[in-house]
Structure formats: C-alpha cells, structure tokens
C-alpha cells in the first residue's frame, strides 16, 4: 500500500489506531515528492526537515486528533512563521514572516505537518502559475498542460500525491480553477468564514483562504479546523462553525438546484457543457429538483473584477517598497528612485501592469467612470445571486470553460470567467471532479448562499459517491 495515496480521513483513522506512524506517513510523502516533484514543480520551498521533527514529536506523544500528523502544503502567499513566504515574487525572495497566518496557525496547533510552500502566480496575478518568478507548475494529468492558477502548485501537489491536502487562496477563482484543471476538490468558503489574517492581500474585498483536497470528506475535515471567528480580521464572521462531517450524506431529496444559463453559452467547450449536463442528470437521479435559471449580469463580472481587483491591488501592493523587507535596489541614490527601481525590478510584468491599471482606475479623474461604476455593477451581480437563492439551495455550473490546455495555448479571458461572479458576491463556491474529457478532468462548480458551505458539501459528497471521479488519479510513474 502506498501511504501517500490515502485520503486524509483514512490516514487520520490509521494514525489514531496506531496502525501507522506520522513519521511513516511523512516518509511516504517525502518519497513521493522525490519521485514526481521534478515533473510537477509544485513547490517553491520544501520544509521536510522541520516536518520530520514535528512528525517525530507527534509520534513520541502519540496525540492524534483531527488532522494531526498528516502532511500538507501551503500556498506561498500565506505567511508562515520562520519559513520563507515569497508569493512567487522576486520582491519577496527570502522574506521570513515573524508570524503565522491564522489558518496556518490553526492547522499547526492541530498537529498538522507542513511539508512546504506551494507555487503560484506571482502575487496571485496570472492564470496558469506561469508568472511565478521561480518556474511554472505542470498538470499531473498531462505534463505539457497547465495546472491552472494562481493556485497551480497547491492543486497539482494534491493531485500528484505530494501532499494530502493544501491550503490555498481564492480571489477571482484561483483555487477553484486550479482544482478543476487538476481534478481535485477546491472550496472557496464564504467571504469572512476563514480569517484572511496572514494571507498576503491582493484584493482585500475578495481574497479568501480555502482547502484543496482529493475528496469532499477531506474538504469538510479541513474546513472544520480553519473556519471560524478571528479577532485579527475585521471581516471575520462570528457565526458558529458546524461539524461539516454532519453534511456528508447522499440523499438529496427535495434539494433545489439551479443551473444558470449564462454559464452554458457557446464560449464554454461543448465537451465541458456535456459533462456538466450529465452531472445535472445525476443530481436529478439523486433526488434533487434541477431547473434552468439566470444570472443576467454575469457577463459584466470580468470587467468589474479587473477594475476592482486591480484598484485594491494597487493599494495593497504599495507596501512592497524595499524599505522594511523584500527586494531593494541598492544602487539608487534617493528614496523615490530606490522605491521605483525596487518595484520596477522586483515585480514581474503582470504585477506591474495590474498595479498601474489600478492606479489609473483610482485616479481622481477616472474614479467615477471606472471604480465607482464597477462597485455599482458589483451590487447587480450580487443581487442576481440573492434572487437565485430565493428559489434554489445551490447553483451548479462548470468551473472553467475548458479543460486544462497545453501550455502556450492559453486564453486568459476564459479561464476565470465562471469563477469570478461568486468571488464578487462573497458567496461560498467549490469545484469538484465532475467528469473526464479526453483523459482530463472537468470541474463541476457548486455555488451556494452565504454560509451554505454545508449545503455545498452535501451536494458535492452525494455526487462524488455516485460518480467516483475522485478515485481516478493521474499516472506519473514511468
């Protein structure tokens, strides 16, 4: 038996029963990384030495509860105490935070074993983990294809068995889109459900932390630990966190599911549409009522997102100036030149362009035309969802318009189109393996009203148990 291949819940059970040791689990993951990492390139930093120490400590104390002793990875835009956090940018090369992100701290306290920091698009700006200043990440299902982004490292590592699960982030769809391309489960919880403290901000009004896992049960287990109120995040929600395992059932009788027609238009590949329609049939079989519905303002979501996200990013990214940490141009003679050169050389083109765009959008003359208007249309998009959820318990749609495509054949506009609306509305959304097209996974996106993570998990679990796509794994051994 290959230990790396176990699910989180299975491994947790075995650790608890003393059938395996945390050090053995880590050893298996470590061997797996040795074997496949040079093909996948999911990591920026490996922390196997610290992980070994921690695993040994856990074995010595033998205290395994929840996710204790299980190796996981963290997207490199979540701050980790004493471990470099780079956001895949030259700007933050070598930056060692003096604090843990709240979500990371919670897993650490629960005994989870971090094995490394995962690759991403530079500061989350990009679509295919290609803007990383280190290297791109490859799709485990086909190494010539993209792993998605910004959370390509997280999704690929989970799919390839290099970690049991990963913590990632989602601003416009990052972790859902990457999960879809890599055939794993990715959940973006309700805005405010997981603390953003320690998540390097891009667009503060949309950034969220969420889990990437191999199955729905594991997703529920991670959510149990990372959700909940945090006094360090002013937008943290105080609502009580249920035990999400309680939602893992297969009877969907009476569940009302809508599928928004705007997510099935011609720009979505026919094969993807067919796969998702098949999934909808499956939902009917499972007892749900499935109906077509509309989210009429969906087509405005992409421009609205670009304007708002670039504006917020331009301000959030101002702190990277070479004064207190990060890359600094040592030659500059005065402070303005030092800041400009440090930022000019420390940031990659995607990041620079985004900051400049945001600077323009917020400038006095343009504010009303672009920023203010985008905030108004954001309300229309959110109200579309509000209306839909008066009638439906959840909405089902494709996560992405295509399956993962060969590197170079990219179409940026299409890659986040279907994930952005939920981000703008602040609602929970997840992607689960929903079918296969030419040996590549199709992502099925579930979107629910605020705090309906449980409903999403229930629908996701029922489909997963009925469909078995989650049991398929990419073949990497030659």
């Amino acid at each position, binding site marked *: 038996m290959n230990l790396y291949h176990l699910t989180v819940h299975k491994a947790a059970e075995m650790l608890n029963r003393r059938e395996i040791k945390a050090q053995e689990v880590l050893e298996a993951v470590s061997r797996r990384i040795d074997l496949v990492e040079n093909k996948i390139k999911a990591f920026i930093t490996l922390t196997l030495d610290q992980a070994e120490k921690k695993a040994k400590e856990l074995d010595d104390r033998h205290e395994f509860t929840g996710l204790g002793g299980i190796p996981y990875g963290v997207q490199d835009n979540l701050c980790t105490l004493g471990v470099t956090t780079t956001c895949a940018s030259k700007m933050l090369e070598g930056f060692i935070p003096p604090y843990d992100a709240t979500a990371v701290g919670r897993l650490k306290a629960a005994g989870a074993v971090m094995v490394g920091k995962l690759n991403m698009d530079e500061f989350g700006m990009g679509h295919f983990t290609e803007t990383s200043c280190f290297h791109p990440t490859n799709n485990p299902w086909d190494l010539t294809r993209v792993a998605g982004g910004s959370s390509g490292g997280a999704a690929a590592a989970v799919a390839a068995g290099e970690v049991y699960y990963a913590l990632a982030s989602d601003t416009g769809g990052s972790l859902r889109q990457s999960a879809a391309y890599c055939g794993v489960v990715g959940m973006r919880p309700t805005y405010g459900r997981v603390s953003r403290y320690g998540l390097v901000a891009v667009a503060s009004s949309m950034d969220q932390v969420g889990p990437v896992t191999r199955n729905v049960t594991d997703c529920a287990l991670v959510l149990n630990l990372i959700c909940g109120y945090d006094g360090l995040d002013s937008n943290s929600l105080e609502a009580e966190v249920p035990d999400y395992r309680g939602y893992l059932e297969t009877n969907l009788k009476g569940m009302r599911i809508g599928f928004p027609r705007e997510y099935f238009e011609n720009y979505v590949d026919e094969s993807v549409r067919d796969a998702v329609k098949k999934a909808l049939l499956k939902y009917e079989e499972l007892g749900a009522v499935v109906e077509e519905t509309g989210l009429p303002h969906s087509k405005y979501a992409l421009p609205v997102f670009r304007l708002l996200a670039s504006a917020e990013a331009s301000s959030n990214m101002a702190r990277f100036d070479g*004064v207190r940490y990060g890359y600094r141009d040592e030659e500059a003679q005065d402070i303005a030149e030092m800041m400009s050169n440090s930022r000019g050389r420390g940031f990659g083109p995607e990041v620079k362009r985004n900051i400049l765009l945001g600077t323009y959008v917020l400038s006095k003359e343009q504010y009303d035309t672009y920023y203010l208007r985008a905030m108004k249309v954001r309300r229309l998009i959110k109200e579309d969802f509000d209306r839909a959820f008066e009638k439906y318990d959840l909405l089902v749609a494709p996560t992405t318009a295509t399956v993962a495509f060969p590197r170079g054949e990219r179409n940026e506009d299409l890659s986040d189109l279907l994930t952005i609306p939920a981000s703008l509305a602040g609602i929970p959304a997840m992607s689960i393996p929903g079918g296969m097209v030419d040996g590549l996974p199709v992502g099925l996106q579930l979107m629910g009203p605020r705090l309906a993570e449980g409903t999403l998990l229930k629908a996701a679990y029922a489909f997963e148990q009925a469909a078995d796509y989650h049991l398929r794994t990419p073949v990497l051994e030659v």
Partner: protein
Amino acid sequence: MTEKYEAVIGLEVHVELKTNTKAFCGCGLSFGALPNSHVCPGCLGMPGAIPVLNRELVEFAIKTGLALNCKIAEFCRFDRKNYFYPDLPANYQISQLDLPIASAGYLEIESEGVKKKIGINRVHMEEDAGKLVHQGSIMTTPYSLVDLNRAGTPLLEIVSEPDIRSPREASMYMEKLRSILLFLRVSDCKMEEGSLRCDANVSVRPRGQERLGTRTEIKNLNSFRSLERALEYEIKRHIELLEEGGELVQETRTWDEDRQVTLSMRSKEEAQDYRYFPDPNLPPVIIDPEWVERVRKTLPELPDQARERLMSEYNLSSYDANLLTMSKDVLDFFDACVAEYNEPKLIANWVMGELTRLLNQNNMEIKDCRVTPSSLAAMLKLMEQGTISGKIAKVVFEEMFNTGDAPEKIVKDRGLVQISDESAIKAIVDEVIAANPKVVEDFKAGKEKALGFLVGQVMKASKGKANPEIVNRLLREELSRP
C-alpha cells in the same frame, strides 16, 4: 496698509490621542522608547496584516466632536489615502475622506471682551506616520533612518472654517482648542513633542470684498508663537505682493523658525493624487443616538463652563478665570485647594503667580509638581494665623516646591516662625533708631520714605521673621515721641 486688507485664515489641527494602543493594532503608544520596539506586523506594514479598529479612538472622536458642538455622523467609514513615503509603512494612510465622524461645529473665542464663534468644518479619525531620523541636514544627509514606533498612533484631524481674521485670533483658537482637548483628557497636546500640530491656510483680500484671495498653506508650526509669527509674516507677504500688483501662487510653504520666514516647498513632482477609496478591510462605523448620548453623559466640565463657574461662584476676574482654565490640571489643582481653604482669589494669585513662575523656571507641569493642593492650603493657613509673613511664605513655598516637604515642617526646621513678641521687636526697633540718627531726622522732617528704610533694617536684623505690622506700629510710636 493692513487696514485696507483683511486676512482669512483656516486651521487644520492634528492631535495625537492618548489611547493605550494604536489606532488599528494592539501595540502600545510610546514616546522616546527604543526605536521600532512598539511595532507589529500591522503597523510595520507587513504583508497579510489587517487593521482592527480601536474602540477608544471612536469614543475619543465622538467626545471631541460633542465638545466642539459638532453633529456626530450616523454612518462613517475609513478610506485609504495613497502616497509613498518611507515613514508610512503600508504607503497608504487610513483616514476618512467624505464621511468624517463629526462635522459642522464651532468653538468660541473671546477677543477684547467680544465673543466670536469659529466654525469647525470637520473632525476625522486617521493614523499617524512613523518618524524619519536624519544625520545632519535633510538636504545633505546621504541616508535616513526610519522608526515606526509612532506609526499607527490615533490622530484626529480638526479642520476649522476660514472664520479666523488675525494671527491673534488664530492663536486664541488654538489655545481654546487645546484647553478643550486637555479637559477631555484625550491628548497631551504638546506642540513641542508633536502631539498637537497645526497647518494654517491663509489668504488676504481687500476689506469688503466677498471673493477670497489666493490661498497659501503654511506647515511646520511647532508652537503658538511660531503660528502667530508665521501668519503675521505670511499676511504681510501677501499684502506686499498685492500692493506691488504681483501674482500670488497657491502653494504650500514651510515656516523657517531660525530665519523667521515662510519658504516655498517646491515639489519636483506633479500634483499629488491620493487615490482615496474606501478601505475594504474596515467595516463602517454606525453611531446610533444612544451611543452619542452615552458619550455625552461622560463629558467633563469644559473650559467655558469652568470659566463661568469661577467668575460667578468665586468672583474671579475674567482674566484670572481664563488663565486657570487653560489646562484641566491647573483647574483641578485650584479646585482641590479651594475645597480645603476657601480663599479662591488668594489661591488664584498663588497658582498663577509663584507656582506658575516656579513651574516655568523648572520646565515642569503642574501634575509633576511636588506641591499639592493640600500643602498649598496648609501654607496659606499658616499665613492667615500669622505664623509666617507673606514674605517668608514665598521662601517656604519655594522650599515646598523643591523638597515636597510640608510647610509646617519647613517653618519649624528652618526657624521661620514669625516674631510677634512686642518686647523682642521693640528691642530691635530701639537698636535701629539708635544706629540711624540721620534717617530718623529725615523722617521727622517729613520724609515719609525714610520709614521704609527703617522697617527694612528691622526686618533684616530679625532675619525677616518680625511681624511687619508690629514693626510698622512700633516704629511709628517711637518716632512720634518728641
């Protein structure tokens, strides 16, 4: 010349609040601590940190708004003001743009017996920046050092309407504002330490003209004196330019304390664009009427009310009442002293006279001083009982100020008890008369002044302890003998 023109002045005041912690993180406030020792990921502008609003900042802001007769906003929010500066860790300042916490208020100043209201346009909450330390001159130093201890300190920006018409009024406005803030105990208001800062907007127009002249802004005003001087200078500069038919430039100028001039702060860049937008990290603040009323109930007596009380209850002059209400600490000292010894006028004289003189001499504040209201009251009682003379009292008081000892102890230890024994004084009087026949003759010839000399001699011989009333009486008796 100045009669022909009228100055129009508005002041923007920044006041550092003395909360326990910073505006948006849990770091304590510090003054003079080791650099960068009161900092955290938040106020260092590290990636991933999120601001969380300090409730006390809002409470202080509401309090200040109410004391300045403002309308308190039902809904206010925080905006980001974006600009790059190495002492601004996130390179944006959290501030309030179009929805400040308080607006449309006023405060009252009194100029030559005439009361005048100066409008308060707005009061808003924001955070302070850190400090830059230069080796030598800012112009020539090859590098600067950044200390972020002050970064994130809560500030209120208080903006007046352009209702001020003279440098004198400007400084009266500042004094009144300062005393209100001190009475509220929301700030230390030390201009020299930067906890109270002021920028002035000034323009000049011919009297009777409605339209405002071109305005300049003056920065770097670190004392009431420099505020007045800078305004005087700037108004004169405007008038001279107008008289010459010159063109004023709307610009920001800095006050050069050494040369006593304002200088243009030419920035090489084009006009700033702060790109304000609502901070998505900070949910809005909604202030319902109950909250306002709750805060209103905690408002202490304010300077104007205290002044009224001193004048009506104690019959103090408006001048005395003004001085005693400049600072809450001074007023509290006065009130406590009066509670123990009901001689308000006498106490007022001592507080504004000897006590203020010694405090200024030693560069101290009343709250750090060793003389307590009780010990001052005790000393005044010794005077009333005749144990010490007024002259000796000053000696005793200085000793109290320096040592903190009780007046009774000082009087006893240094043998300062007044001599009221007539026979003992008579002996000295006789000696003095015998030793100064020339002066005695002068007095008898009608030179009243000569008596003063003789009194002085007696006092000197008694080391100041002889009761001056008795000395006077005995001398007159002796000298009137044929």
